[in-house]
């Protein structure tokens, strides 16, 4: 919209109808009174944000609920979440609008959800993904701005980045994730003593030295290379911040229990059982990274878009099954391909349960977190990208309502990204581009 929306006019509800929330940043509304203080220190419990991705969608009629609102009906493929239904919202009927850009199979859906833009080239991201934007908002005081992991073991399996040809690479094993989080540089928040590492202090000054090279370099480059340099120096600043954190005595955190041993190295493979195992170890590691406040943002990828999951003894992968397996006339779906979906939903529940097991004051870690789980297609057989299955778990420290089925009624999927960023305190009132530009927050979710 071209005209200026003042805060007041927006709050009066002059937008398009009841389901549409205010057009101003929701930051102020959320910040008061919703956090719980930890008894031990009086410090606020941080709110975390994450994503959980799975490839190849669902069988829509067997997954999406029929009834909107609380106590939605659980179809067979969603049944695994039963025990956590009150903490999980399901989002349906949000559409990806490509404005004439091709629907690149398995590649268009994920980036559209994450960036609110249509992908025109099958690589990288068409813009900054919202997890990065949220990380800039809530992740500046932790060692890691975000942690990214791929249970299927591919570092390129990522939907997170600042756009262009660059994706934040995923950790591929629980062992490497462990080393990253709890290896050198980790300071146990509950340790009685704290001595800043002189080496870290020296490195900190070295890095600020590297920053000084910036002007000299940028003066000599053209526009395209300047973008690369900007990204480089952004990355460098984050590294500096991390060292700052390592040089500061951390607040004690009751929930933080440092894992005793590094998990065993596992070689990546598409075998579903191995991926499940890898995911479980990564999930446990991720949960402790959050509980120990090493990061407040994470991206967990279970499998990849065109899923290369396999089952021992099967000649074809999950992805091929979705295309080649006959739609069973009697059942109305593809039983072999659906086998993988059930496993994926069980893995998602494992992740949620692991978060919910950690107690932080009178809430659980899950309650203090907001996680968007989503796929990249609705029904993989036909590569459909409208109504891509999405779930929202956790309550972001009380900022959102949970346990709802929200029917998007065909509105752009960018509403999800907009709402998530607003909930996490990013100061924006509209998001996305072209037909996916929106200022319509999903108000049903706001507590």
């Amino acid at each position, binding site marked *: 919209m071209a005209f200026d929306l003042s805060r007041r006019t927006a709050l009066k509800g002059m937008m398009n109808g009841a389901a549409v929330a205010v057009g101003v940043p929701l930051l102020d509304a959320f910040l008061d009174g919703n956090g719980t203080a930890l008894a031990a220190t009086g410090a606020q419990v941080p709110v975390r944000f994450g994503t959980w991705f799975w490839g190849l969608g669902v069988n829509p009629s067997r997954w999406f609920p029929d009834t909107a609102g609380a106590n939605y009906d659980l179809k067979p493929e969603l049944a695994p979440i039963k025990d956590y239904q009150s903490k999980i919202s399901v989002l349906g009927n949000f559409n990806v609008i490509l404005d004439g*850009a*091709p*629907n*690149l*199979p398995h*590649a268009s859906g994920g980036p559209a959800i994450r960036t609110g833009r249509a992908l*025109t*080239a*099958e*690589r*990288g991201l068409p813009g900054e993904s919202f997890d990065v934007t949220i990380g800039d908002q809530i992740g500046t005081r932790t060692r890691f*701005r*975000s942690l990214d992991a791929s249970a299927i073991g591919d*570092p390129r399996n990522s939907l997170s*980045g600042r756009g*262009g*040809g*660059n994706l*934040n*690479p995923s950790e591929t094993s629980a062992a490497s994730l462990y080393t990253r989080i709890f290896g050198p540089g980790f300071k146990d928040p509950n340790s009685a003593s704290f001595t800043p590492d002189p080496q870290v202090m*020296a490195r900190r*000054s*070295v*890095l600020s*030295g*590297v920053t*000084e*090279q910036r002007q*000299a*370099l*940028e*003066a*000599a480059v*053209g*526009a*395209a*290379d*300047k*973008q*690369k340099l900007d990204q*480089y120096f952004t*990355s460098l600043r*984050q*590294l500096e911040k991390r060292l700052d954190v390592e040089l500061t005595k951390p607040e004690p955190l009751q929930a933080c229990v440092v894992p005793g041993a590094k998990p065993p190295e596992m070689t*990546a493979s*598409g*075998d579903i059982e191995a991926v499940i195992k890898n995911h479980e170890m990564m999930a446990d590691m991720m949960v402790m990274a959050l509980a120990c406040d090493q990061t407040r943002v994470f991206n967990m990828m279970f499998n990849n878009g065109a899923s*290369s999951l*396999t089952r*021992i*003894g*099967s000649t074809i*992968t999950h992805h091929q099954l979705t*295309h*080649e*397996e*006959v739609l069973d006339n009697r059942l109305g779906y593809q039983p072999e391909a659906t086998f993988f979906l059930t496993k994926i939903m069980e893995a998602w529940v494992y992740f949620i349960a692991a978060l919910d097991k950690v107690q932080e004051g009178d809430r659980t870690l899950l309650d203090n977190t907001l996680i968007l789980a989503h796929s990249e297609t609705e029904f993989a*057989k036909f*590569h459909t*990208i409208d109504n891509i299955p999405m779930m929202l778990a956790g309550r972001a420290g009380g900022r959102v309502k949970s346990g709802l089925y929200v029917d998007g009624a065909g509105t752009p999927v960018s509403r999800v990204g907009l709402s998530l960023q607003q909930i996490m305190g990013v100061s924006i009132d509209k998001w996305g581009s072209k037909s996916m530009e929106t200022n319509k927050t999903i108000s049903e979710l706001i507590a």
Partner: protein
Amino acid sequence: MMMNPIKRMAWSVATLPLVLMGCAASEAPKTAAVQDAAPALARTLPGQQIVAMRRLTEAQYRNVIADVFGPDVVVAGRIEPIVRPVHEMIASGAAEASISPAGLDQFDAMGRNIAAQVFGEQRRAQFVPCAPKDEKVADAACAAKVLTPLGRYLFRRPMSPAEQAFFVKLAGDGAGPTGSFHKGLELALAAMLTSPRFLYIVETAEPDPAKPGELRLDAWSRAARLSFLLWNTTPNETLLKAAEAGKLTDQAQLSILAETMVASPRFEQGVRAFFADMLLFEKFDELSKDPVIYPYFNQDVVQALPEQMLRTITDHLVARRGDYRDLFTTQRTFMTRSLGGLYQVPVGRSAGWVPYEFAPGDDRAGLLGQAGFLALYSHSGRSSPTLRGRAVRELLMCEPVPNPPGNVNFTAVQETGNKAKPTARIRLLAHATDPSCSGCHKITDPIGLSLERFDGLGMARKTENAALIDASGEMDGKLFQGAIGLGKTMAESSSTTQCLSMRALSYATGRSGEDVSNYVEGLERKFAAGGYGIRALFSQIATMPEAYQVVTKPLAAPTHVSMLTQ
């Protein structure tokens, strides 16, 4: 949606985007919001302009560290992968690659680890030619003696006095709090290894005296270009001296140097890197096969498969100075014991590689008869004539094949276990009856079907589901039998050699295939005149003035369509 049949790529007019448009109406990709030109601040490199920044690949990083600090220095860690632009070389992706926070984290950790090894007690004598006055405090004069030569190797040009003073100061700043001169050096070296000047090959330009108003790469950038192109590593002392002496902007001297470099044993390392890029070897990292169906598949085999291909390539092209076209029919290769099982040939030695020559007439001929290629372009549990045919078209002939449209109904393609359709040839007939599929499949499948006598891991077989396999193939109207027939047909096609010329030029310059396509015809003629020898091609590219000209127009992003496993 109908698919357009593929068009022969005409080099003067780049049909590449047109072919891609055949299946999907794609709007032109937008370049991201571009800022105005750099502010007119004082430049560190007077008169010079940075015209390209190409990120080091993992192999280059490792080679540089080994060459500068010794092969025993361990490079521990993973390097952020460079995203490959679809249908292009990773080398052109490197020119667009930025470094993410997680990526920089890795580079920082690796840099510190390397620096600690270099200035650890074991090795420091090698790199510290002077004794500090006191090992517990900074010593600027000694630090300068250590860091100045290292900076020249790592940044591929001498450091400016300001840069030199800067890193010496860092070493001093580091020595203070750590109470160690060597720790200070360590921190300064770690900062060098994290610097964009190291992680990127920074190409700078100077006015071209032959073409007033235009720019050409300067001597230091040429040294790096030559070195990374031909040896895949950082310029050595000879090259740096040649750059300093102005030899690299002199055509005659440049030719002499390039000839020396392609004659060196190190050229093999460059050829390996080029083919690993051209043949998408990063896909081997993700190769997985079902061990129940393919009992010969194991980690030894996974590691041996790409190595066998590279050994075949370098033996034929470099050691034997063979004709590139004969690479597709050669009977010579190398085996390990674990590959011996897969190929069902006896291998006498229990460890290492042994040369092996297939009998004349054996269908296992040429690069495409190797298990590495056959396994990579197969599914996890069965072969795929479509993937194999597509790889031949795209990788070796530079003819992009469109993706299936996003909304295609795949119901017609099914029933892999159907006993009535025992072979892939019969199953693929299903596509031919569906016009939305047949358009593209007819340009891939007839090629791949000639390789059907090799299963999804590349093991030879005569039958599938007890039905005899027919390995007749067809490409662009030419009929042939089996892998050897395919190899001969490819050797006769001008696309094969033109494609290699284009890939090599793209690899050298970091530009997309489309951006270099104007020069391919001329290059191809020289390649032919040199008997299609790899040395002729690479020394030509290393010396052609066009490769050193600076493209002043902003490089448009190529149109991308991917090679997803379909």
